[in-house]
């Protein structure tokens, strides 16, 4: 009886031909091709094309020869690495404090909400907020000067510099870390700790031999994600420094406005170099994420 109904329902809705099923996703793929793949391909092809339109690898080679370009990459990598490691450690400690660190429960949801906001609070408003805080007339600058008699600007600090940009990026970096690490820390099972303690492990031993090996992939993965997050940032840096700090995104921005490198192909190559670094870091992130899911899910 059931079999007959099954077979009739099969007849009523015959399995459509395979290619017809793909019609349903054509708009999406068309969109992706037109506004994501085609623009990326254009830059890719451009980076292998010389001024006369012939194939060349000269642009790629020139990336490694021109000092200003190498410096830009190096500056971007340094800023991204420092904010990824610093923001990563700080974010981890914060996530630890509100998950298993023994802080009252309401603080946890407060921190998570605030992290959601702060990791999305970037660009021009963030830059202005830091000018109001650590700029020449910023509040912290004034407090340090008037109360502690320390003039940080005379001491060599400058908001519109490497240090300043790093401090500003931190504002969206460590909240992102909190958002990624809080669920991972929740995944640490109480039983593991109890088992370790029953076997006579000290807190240090538990952390170094049980918890850390489990957390390490997601910790590293999250830091790599933070690296990519800072590496691709443009608006915050531009709003803060007005383009005076030549990180890669700023250089590419200048190249878009006008051919400052006097070689369009080199500009495309520079953009492709960025995509390359982003791709590597995100591949690393998703690989580590998969490794960490073995234990933390």
């Amino acid at each position, binding site marked *: 009886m059931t079999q007959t109904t099954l077979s009739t329902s099969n007849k009523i809705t015959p399995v459509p031909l395979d290619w017809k099923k793909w019609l*349903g996703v054509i708009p999406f793929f068309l*969109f992706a091709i037109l*506004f994501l793949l085609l623009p990326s391909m254009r830059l890719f092809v451009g980076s292998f094309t010389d001024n006369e339109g012939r194939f060349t690898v000269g642009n790629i080679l020139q990336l490694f020869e021109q000092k200003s370009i190498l410096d830009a990459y190096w500056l971007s990598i340094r800023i991204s690495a420092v904010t990824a490691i610093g923001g990563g450690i700080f974010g981890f400690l914060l996530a630890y*404090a509100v998950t298993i*660190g023994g802080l009252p429960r309401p603080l946890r949801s407060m921190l998570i909400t605030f992290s959601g906001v702060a990791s999305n*609070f970037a*660009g021009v408003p963030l830059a202005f*907020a830091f000018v109001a805080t650590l700029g020449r007339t910023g509040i912290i600058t004034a407090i340090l000067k008037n109360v502690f008699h320390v003039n940080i600007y005379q001491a060599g600090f400058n908001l519109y510099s490497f240090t300043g940009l790093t401090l500003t990026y931190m504002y969206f970096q460590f909240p992102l870390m909190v958002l990624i690490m809080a669920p991972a820390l929740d995944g640490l099972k109480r039983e593991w700790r109890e088992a370790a303690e029953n076997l006579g492990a000290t807190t240090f031993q538990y952390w170094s031999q049980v918890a850390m090996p489990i957390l390490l992939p997601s910790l590293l993965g999250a830091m790599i994600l933070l690296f990519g997050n800072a590496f691709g940032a443009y608006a915050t840096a531009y709003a803060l420094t007005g383009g005076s700090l030549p990180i890669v995104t700023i250089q590419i921005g200048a190249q878009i406005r006008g051919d400052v490198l006097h070689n369009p192909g080199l500009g495309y190559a520079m953009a492709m170099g960025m*995509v390359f670094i982003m791709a590597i870091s995100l591949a690393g992130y998703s690989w580590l994420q998969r490794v960490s899911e073995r234990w933390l899910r």
Partner: protein
Amino acid sequence: MNLATSQTASKVLKSKGQEAKPQNRKIPVWSWFWFILGALYFILPLYATLQFSLQMKRDEITLLAYQKAFEDPQFIKTFTYSNLLALATIIAGIVLFVPTAYWIRLRLPQARRITEFITFLPFVVPAIILVFGLIRIYSTPVKIPFTDIELFQPLTTTHFGTNILIVAGYMVLAMPYMYRSVDIGMRTVDVRTLTEAAQSLGASWFQIITRIILPNIRASLLSGALLTFAIVVGEVTLASFLGVNAFGPYLFLLGQHLAYQPAALSFVTFLLTWMAMGLIQLFTGGQGQAAGAH
């Protein structure tokens, strides 16, 4: 008997736990330390912005900066425009992503991996690279490859074309968050059964999507929409390179000339982001999401 012993056992365990607690209940000094440090990092820049924005008159707390900022017709214009862009992005995103995710779940699981890969790509291609490519492609007449047949005029030369371009760009930027939240929303409802039920009652595809699927995933739709809103209003990179009169570039330019109004508007932007994220928390009760319009 067994039950009784296990109950007493659990009681013993519980009381043991309670005995052990006071020992662990030492105030977690380090946790507090990091938490307070984090809270200061969060709050100080906001406090500084607020404080600064209230000082337009000497020795007096005043909302004058806010009043002046809001009165600027340019502000009203750009802010309205950015909100319209956000709305267009959200609607176009829903129209494109919901049927796609639905169809893949229902009939085309083999397209799953490639779609996931595509929705992940915008993380690899940052906004500055995306706009670079978009400008290079769409600032010249678009031709059929290898021929001289023009498909359409350059998009960047007309208002309408630029609007299409920027909404499409924002859709790409928002795609990882929006597509995923739609997809996750569909994971929690049984799409197949719902579809079969609707079909057996004679519903058309359009009816299934608008009357059955959309209402069932409204929580995740809403969180995706709010996140998109937070990304788009205030976005600078795409807007400034495509030369549109949006709120982000306006705020940036304002900061070049004035001091107090930009601080006031920055604080307002923060409140808006806060509102969007708070609403997401409210609707999903989840961990909140992180975006990347940096």
